[in-house]
């Protein structure tokens, strides 16, 4: 097949002549696409599963009346049923039931079998069972979902043991529900049984509603709202599914953003490859132009080459991405080990549109990276480029206006609020900052290399001494004079540094990708260390006692009776004890309840066990209950210290006064701390979830643990831990959560190292004549290798230096903007000095090694032939 000569020269020619470099560019794009697609597919699969699971709870319901934190008084039930436009209703009592014989909990749904089957046709069998008996489901009988049966290994006739308080209740498995009924771990019991068993007499968790055709969802919703107390809300099943997704959205979006960093780096890699290609083939482009190829054709040919690279990379990336997603989902789960979606078994499905989008992103990254080189190819001054020794294009050019505007835009983005609750302006600021950094790099490279040349090479120092100069230069020169290194060794350093300073643009092209990836690695390392150190300090602050006994959590069936908690307090060796209880309160106008931590608390000494970040300056009104809200609550509900707000708790509405805002890494959706006495006074609930025990000075903790075990029922599930154990397990969870991010960073840095390899090999080709001349002048192969190593190490060091500086700035954005907007938690800045030093040293060494490997052609006999072209 005869090809257009232009396409052959500008598109296919480079692919044939530099398959290694082009292959690396294709691989860089492929890795970026693969990572982005894999993380997206995993996230989307998990999100679909969560959404479907949440949606499946509501069956065919159009609306759901949510009872709020304390549940809905069942007297509202007939009112709801009689509301105009309501066709059918189904009352539900929902409980998080703790397993008695293993960790974890199951959703127990108390339902009326004759009503729920109108919403969940798959539950029709329950109505048949009830119709054959006394009209209700048998007491202590549970029908488990297919997912629960599979996970717990249950079948008809088995017992499901549930912990209620510290007691154990055994439910007989009456059957396994069809898979269409509920997608997640759940069990259905009779509604009256649920109310009685779990202390919810007269209360309903929600009432599912189907409306009459043509009644209008919004109209019925308004009628219901008018009917209900402020603590209740009317949600759509879709809204409930969104709420379930929202819990993990920030984590998922951050992970996707991190995965796309690899694509971003891949784009820079294409930029480097194409720019080096254009620089190296300057004369070819000039010849083509002289022969009549138009500027537009030249521009198009370079872009066409990039489209081809991008398309190949995108195809490969899609294949790798789908395989990686399938593997990740199977091995790590839908949350990649972070612990968000433990209840969901994610299904895997790939949609054509997703493949198209990510493939397009890959091609777009390749095109974006190639735009500037393509424009330069089209602007090459033909006459100059046809002259021998034309090297002007390798000169560094400053773009002060572009850099300034980009930096200003980055600053402006930081001031913008989050978009759709996501820190998108923060991400934009990071991208702009990195672009500005890369744009400023040629000038920085030239300045640093020129300075280094003056400091480290005797000739330049001596030359400077001939001019009037300060003591500093005299000192430098005397240092150099004392050095035992031979002039030849300095010569290697001098040539390498002069090459980098003189060809700063080449150097920048080689290090652009490594700057981007290393700055992101640095920023992540600083952010993760800051987070980990802050978490560690937070745990230690929050856990002042010697032993913690924890039974159950928010909304769960397990708890300690106050008498049992008192018995723990009276154990020999216990100096003192405090109690806490997890509950929920409703903020009027908000659909979600807020977590309440009711603690034995000395109001004045709250700061001793809470990390207070802001305190109220004004005095509390006498009638208001003092509370301390976490940072998430402050952000989500726009609540501040010193404010008085009304909340609904235990069926009562009380005024609260925000005494302070505290740092909290546990409750991402808002939590408040209040005194136990105030809580008990408002709710009458005296149950306890956690007992904090301080041991007497001489009391051995092991004995105290043994006594606690003796006191509590042997078949009850509880956590008995020291602060050290809690700290260890918390940090282990933290490390597991961030394990995937480390992997993503390493891949991004690998792509960056490709950049140095490609840059060096391209330069060695371009400088063959120079290397040939050096070999003629008496440079040994080892000296040429040493020179390349010095160049590689210097480029690596420049990449590291610029990357560290940019990474430090990006880390500030991550810590103070992205994390704050995503997860609503603050942290103290903490840099991992040793880790960054080791990473920097490793990267410099890798760069030196890669430069020698990539440039081994410069040491081969072939290079001598470069000057033979003249002979």
């Amino acid at each position, binding site marked *: 097949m005869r090809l257009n000569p232009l396409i052959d020269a500008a598109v296919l020619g480079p692919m044939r002549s530099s398959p290694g470099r082009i292959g690396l560019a294709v691989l860089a794009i492929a890795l970026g696409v693969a990572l982005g697609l894999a993380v997206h597919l995993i996230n989307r699969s998990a999100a679909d599963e969560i959404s479907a699971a949440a949606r499946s709870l509501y069956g065919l319901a159009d609306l759901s009346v949510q009872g709020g934190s304390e549940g809905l008084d069942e007297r509202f039930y007939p009112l709801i049923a009689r509301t105009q436009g309501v066709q059918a209703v189904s009352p539900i009592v929902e409980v998080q039931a703790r397993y008695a014989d293993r960790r974890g909990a199951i959703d127990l749904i108390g339902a009326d079998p004759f009503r729920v089957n109108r919403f969940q046709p798959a539950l029709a069998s329950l109505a048949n069972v009830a119709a054959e008996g006394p009209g209700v489901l048998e007491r202590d009988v549970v029908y488990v979902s297919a997912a629960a049966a599979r996970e717990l290994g249950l079948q008809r006739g088995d017992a499901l043991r549930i912990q209620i308080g510290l007691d154990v209740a055994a439910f007989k498995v009456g059957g396994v529900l069809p898979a269409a009924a509920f997608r997640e771990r759940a069990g259905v019991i009779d509604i009256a049984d649920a109310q009685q068993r779990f202390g919810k007499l007269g209360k309903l968790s929600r009432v599912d509603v189907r409306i009459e055709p043509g009644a209008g969802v919004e109209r019925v919703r308004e009628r219901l709202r008018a009917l209900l107390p402020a603590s209740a809300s009317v949600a759509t099943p879709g809204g409930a599914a969104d709420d379930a997704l929202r819990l993990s959205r920030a984590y998922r979006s951050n992970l996707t953003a991190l995965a796309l960093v690899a694509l971003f780096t891949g784009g820079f890699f294409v930029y480097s490859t194409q720019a080096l290609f254009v620089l190296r083939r300057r004369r070819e482009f000039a010849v083509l132009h002289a022969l009549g190829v138009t500027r537009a054709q030249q521009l198009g040919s370079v872009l066409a080459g990039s489209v081809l690279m991008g398309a190949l990379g995108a195809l490969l990336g899609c294949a790798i991405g789908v395989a990686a997603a399938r593997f990740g989902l199977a091995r790590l789960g839908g949350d990649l080990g972070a612990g968000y979606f433990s209840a969901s078994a994610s299904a895997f499905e790939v949609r054509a549109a997703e493949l198209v989008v990510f493939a397009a992103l890959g091609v777009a990254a390749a095109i974006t990276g190639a735009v500037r080189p393509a424009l330069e190819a089209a602007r090459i001054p033909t006459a100059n480029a046809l002259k021998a020794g034309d*090297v002007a294009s390798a000169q560094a050019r400053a773009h002060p206006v572009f850099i300034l505007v980009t930096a200003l835009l980055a600053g402006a983005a930081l001031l913008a609020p989050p978009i759709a609750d996501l820190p998108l302006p923060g991400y934009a600021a990071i991208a702009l900052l990195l672009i500005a950094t890369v744009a400023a790099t040629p000038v920085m490279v030239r300045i640093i290399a020129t300075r280094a040349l003056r400091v480290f090479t005797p*000739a330049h120092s001596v030359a400077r001494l001939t001019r009037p100069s300060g003591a500093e230069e005299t000192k430098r020169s005397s240092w150099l004079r004392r050095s035992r290194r031979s*002039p030849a060794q300095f010569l290697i350093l*001098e040539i390498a540094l002069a090459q980098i300073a003189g060809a700063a643009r080449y150097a920048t092209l080689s290090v652009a990708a490594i700057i981007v990836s290393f700055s992101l690695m640095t920023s992540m390392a600083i952010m993760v260390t800051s987070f980990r150190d802050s978490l560690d300090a937070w745990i230690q602050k929050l856990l002042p006692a010697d032993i913690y006994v924890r039974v159950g959590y928010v909304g769960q069936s397990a708890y300690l009776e106050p008498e049992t908690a008192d018995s723990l307090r009276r154990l020999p060796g216990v100096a003192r004890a405090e109690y806490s209880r997890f509950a929920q309160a409703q903020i009027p106008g908000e659909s979600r309840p807020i977590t309440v931590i009711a603690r034995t608390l000395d109001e004045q000494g709250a700061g001793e066990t809470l990390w207070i970040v802001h305190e109220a300056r004004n005095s509390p009104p006498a009638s208001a209950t003092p509370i301390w809200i976490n940072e998430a609550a402050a952000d989500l509900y726009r609540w501040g210290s010193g404010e008085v707000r009304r909340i609904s708790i235990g069926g009562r509405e009380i005024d609260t006064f925000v005494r302070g805002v505290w740092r909290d890494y546990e409750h991402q959706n808002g939590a408040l701390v209040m005194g136990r006495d105030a809580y008990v006074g408002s709710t009458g609930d005296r149950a306890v979830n956690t007992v904090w025990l301080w041991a007497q000075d001489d009391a051995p903790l092991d004995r105290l643990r043994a006594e606690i075990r003796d006191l509590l029922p042997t078949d009850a599930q509880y956590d008995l831990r020291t602060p050290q154990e809690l700290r260890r397990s918390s940090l282990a969870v933290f490390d597991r959560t961030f394990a995937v991010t480390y992997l993503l960073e390493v891949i991004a840095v690998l792509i960056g190292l490709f950049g140095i390899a490609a840059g060096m090999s391209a330069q060695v080709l371009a400088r063959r004549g120079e290397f040939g001349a050096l070999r*003629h002048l*008496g440079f040994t192969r080892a000296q040429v290798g040493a020179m390349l190593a010095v160049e590689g190490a210097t480029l690596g060091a420049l990449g590291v230096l610029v990357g560290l500086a940019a990474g430090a700035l990006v880390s500030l954005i991550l810590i103070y903007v992205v994390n704050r907007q995503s997860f609503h938690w603050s942290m103290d800045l903490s840099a991992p000095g040793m880790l960054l030093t080791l990473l920097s040293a490793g990267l410099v060494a890798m760069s030196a090694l890669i430069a020698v490997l990539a440039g081994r052609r410069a040491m081969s006999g072939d290079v001598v032939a470069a000057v*033979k072209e*003249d002979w």
Partner: protein
Amino acid sequence: MLYVDQICKSFPAGAGAQPGPRRPVLSGVTLRLEPGEYVAVMGESGSGKSTLLNLIAGLDTPDAGRIEIDGQDISALDDAARTRLRRSKLGFVFQAFHLLPYLSVERNIALPLALNGVAESDAQRRTEELLQAVGLVERRRAAPRELSGGEMQRVAVARALAHRPKLVLADEPTGNLDAEAAAEVLALLRAQLKRDRAAGVLVTHSVLAASTADRVLRLTRTGLQEATAFA
């Protein structure tokens, strides 16, 4: 100073280095040069001029025969020893100059001195001397790209002579220069060779350039033959 004794060299006739028929390039070439003697080698394209220079420079090895430089048989040396010999006793002038683009004029000239371990102060003195000799004192700090072709080749000549080599190999040093600049460079090269009593081999197609040498040799299939003499 240089003794080339009956050297032969052939290359594979086809592509690659597979065994098979070989194409002879040099057959029984003999050449002797005394210190300070300057010869020009002329010949048609493909006559083996570049091969001869490669062999003399120790960048390639002959199939037969021997080459002595300053009494040392380079055929018996390994690559590292040949590199050291080239570094200390040979100088090169290329058609395309091959100056290091990011070193200044004076650092390009000083390059062989540093490579040979000459002390910085001595190197500076020698560089200064050569800068004056080639008339580029004012341009010492300039980068090669700021020079004209003639100036670049003058720097290349200074670099070739900086470490006082015993033998200078010049390949078409005026191939990229106009007539005036070429004449300047050739005169400079001859003068410097004579002053340092270095032997010189000039490969050229130009009769005018060859006329600046002491002797002119023509390279043919049968070896090197005396063409005519200019003195």
